[in-house]
């Protein structure tokens, strides 16, 4: 076969990918601006990018070092995700935000071996909250299992303090992501005495008629959803079409963005979703971004997503990463930190309400206090509700604490099994 030709091409390609010798802080963004999940990926990537541009424009980077953003398109596909990982690693990435539960699973062993921290805020492998076993994974401020119990708690409150004899349906994306909460909800069902109904929806999820007929037939009191992409929009439409009371329909924090509810129009009114940060546009940080980034014409994408839920998710990811880098700079005393230093930075990250206020996000999100054992953060979640008339989300609860008595034993068991399977010695003293 024609390997010579291939090698020539390959050699040409290596010339292009050869890492640039610059002392910048390399922030990779594994984004997906194309493909079936692009509507969700674009605002996230824009928020991430805008925050980094802000740091560069306003503060000149972090600790005097400019940040270099390396974007790589994954299309929400694991194959491309792994390729992106290898290429940003070659560029000297300080951390990885995989932006997909599937990619996270692939990268956990690789990133651990390469000493690069994986920041999977609010998704990925839940048991990675156990920092003893998963030394390089950080999934604060909460995991899928935390949020599952938060949602159940909210349902319990709604139905007057008890779920005894109630029926809860889980409509989920038939993938690793969608299956994450099943075990927790099963445990929770035992504890609170409700009945759990599982309703998977296959990718992409444009046809859900039978699923929702099932719901109409079985009449669950509550429905929760682990959906992503077009599945969210269709599910909300179908829920409205069977006249399911929307206030009893609560999505996970990845099923609660403007993109999910807007196409459904008025039908989506009253739909709820979990979240780990506040909503609205009334924050000093947004003004800063407008002033230093958008007004100078440096907005990522078309700049239209500012202030939306997933845009904030992007900001939060960039913000936590930047704070971890700051922490690493403090700890090492040098400005050009390595990926290993940033891992330590993540592990010692402490952010209080005052810190957030100083960063321009007062009353916005939950305080973080990462320790060697606990990478999963406080495990707090609030519930937001959609108002179709004004096209805004609003928080309807305070931040609710997850049911630790359910989540913690599950995390311990799963982490222990993983440690045994892969011969991992606990890292914490």
């Amino acid at each position, binding site marked *: 076969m024609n390997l010579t030709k291939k090698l020539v091409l390959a050699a040409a390609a290596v010339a292009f990918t050869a890492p640039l010798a610059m002392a910048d802080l390399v922030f990779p963004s594994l984004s997906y601006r194309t493909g079936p999940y692009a509507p969700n990926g674009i605002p996230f990537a824009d928020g991430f990018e805008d925050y980094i541009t802000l740091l560069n424009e306003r503060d000149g980077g972090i600790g005097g070092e400019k940040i270099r953003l390396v974007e790589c398109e994954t299309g929400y596909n694991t194959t491309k995700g792994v*390729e992106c990982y290898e290429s940003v690693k070659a560029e000297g990435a300080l951390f990885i935000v995989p932006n997909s539960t599937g990619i996270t699973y692939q990268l956990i062993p690789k990133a651990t071996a390469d000493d690069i921290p994986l920041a999977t805020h609010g998704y990925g492998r839940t048991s990675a909250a156990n920092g003893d076993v998963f030394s390089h994974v950080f999934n604060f401020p909460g995991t899928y299992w935390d949020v599952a119990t938060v949602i159940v708690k909210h349902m319990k409150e709604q139905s007057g303090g008890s779920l005894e004899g109630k029926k809860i349906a889980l409509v989920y994306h038939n993938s690793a992501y969608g299956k994450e909460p099943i075990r927790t909800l099963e445990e929770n069902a035992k504890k609170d005495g409700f009945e759990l109904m599982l309703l998977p929806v296959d990718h992409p999820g444009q046809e859900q008629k039978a699923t929702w007929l099932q719901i109409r037939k079985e009449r669950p009191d509550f429905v929760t959803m682990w959906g992503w992409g077009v599945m969210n929009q269709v599910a909300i439409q179908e829920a409205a079409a069977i006249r399911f009371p929307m206030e009893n329909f609560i999505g996970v924090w990845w099923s609660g963005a403007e993109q999910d509810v807007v196409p459904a129009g008025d039908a989506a009114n009253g739909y709820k979703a979990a979240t780990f940060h506040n909503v609205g546009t009334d924050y000093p940080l947004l003004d800063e971004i407008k002033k230093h980034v958008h007004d100078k014409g440096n907005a990522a994408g078309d700049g239209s997503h500012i202030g939306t839920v997933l845009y904030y998710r992007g900001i939060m990811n960039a913000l936590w990463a930047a704070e971890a880098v700051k922490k690493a700079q403090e700890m090492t005393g040098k400005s050009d930190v390595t990926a290993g230093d940033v891992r330590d930075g993540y592990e010692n990250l402490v952010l209080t309400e005052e810190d957030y206020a100083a960063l321009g996000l007062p009353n916005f999100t939950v305080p973080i206090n990462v320790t060697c054992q606990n990478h999963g953060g406080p495990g707090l979640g609030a519930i937001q509700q959609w108002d179709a008339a004004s096209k805004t989300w609003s928080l309807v609860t305070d931040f609710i604490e997850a049911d630790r008595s359910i989540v913690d034993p599950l995390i311990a068991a799963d982490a222990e099994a993983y440690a045994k399977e*892969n011969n991992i010695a606990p890292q914490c003293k």
Partner: protein
Amino acid sequence: MFYREAGEFKTTYAKDGATFPISFDFWRFWILMAVAFVLVPMVINGYWANAVFLPFLVFSMAALGLNILQGYCGQVSLGTGGFMCVGAYAAYKFMTAFEWLPVPVIIILAGFITAIVGIGFGLPSLRIKGFYLAVATLAAQFFLPWLSSKWEWAYNYSATGQITAPERTILGVPIAGPQPEPWAAYLLCLTMVFIFGWVARNLVRGRIGREWMSIRDQDIAAEINGVNPLMAKLSAFAVSSFYIGMAGAMYFMIWKGAAEGTEAFSIIVSFDVLFMILIGGLGSIFGSYIGAAFIVLLPVIFKNVFVGMMGWPTDIAELTQRTFVGVLIIFFLIVEPHGIAALWRTLKEKLRLWPFPH
């Protein structure tokens, strides 16, 4: 000029039927193999292994398999992803149930399991033909990954249905699992692809290969001439699925280290492999490799050129690249509908005569 054939005399039938009848081709092939086996492992790193060489080798294997079925036996199939899924999950079960099994043996066993499944899905081919068969094989494509996500035994009752390969070593070198040594993983895959490429080459020029081709060219005529269509079609499905199953096992154990049936082996994989053999050349072993190289490398090269060199936004680069690949496919089909392998053949004929075209 490039080919000096003076003095090459074929004195036996065996020589006349050799794969590389011209000594220049013969030497060139072995020099290439020497480069592939000796030089590449010395310089390979994680990026090259995971983004270029391992995908190329894995998909070469799958393309070989599909080419046997479609290029040699004429049975159109869109079930490749489903069969790779079977191979991957079979490998996972073998890995976790029998920890002492060496990796190459697991790959071959996974191939056998897939062959059995392949025969099952090949049965309708006796009744259904052409595009109807192509669409019918989609049943395998959708059913098998679905089964892998629902049959808890297949993924050892893990919480998410994701399968993760435990680490395996050969002589102390990690070869399969989450973080195999790049050169070792590459060498293992290369060896498998080399051996089974050789097997395929000899299968298709033997009795069974001729049976397949006669079925492809005209199945009724073949039947009249004494070819048993049942045996020919099912054997093609079996051999093809065997290769594709091995590709799936390599994909999971060596290249990715973790997989999720419905995501990793979606219909996109089936189409990619189909592109490979159509662009490379139907009914050509060489075409399977060149097609795999084309489809695996093209996006990587485009990405590096657009994003790395020209600094385009990633989404524009990705979409432009997709458009380009589409244009290239149409272009190739118009220029040479029988694939790059046919183009290569024409070129070679010209080179043999060059500089005297008559």
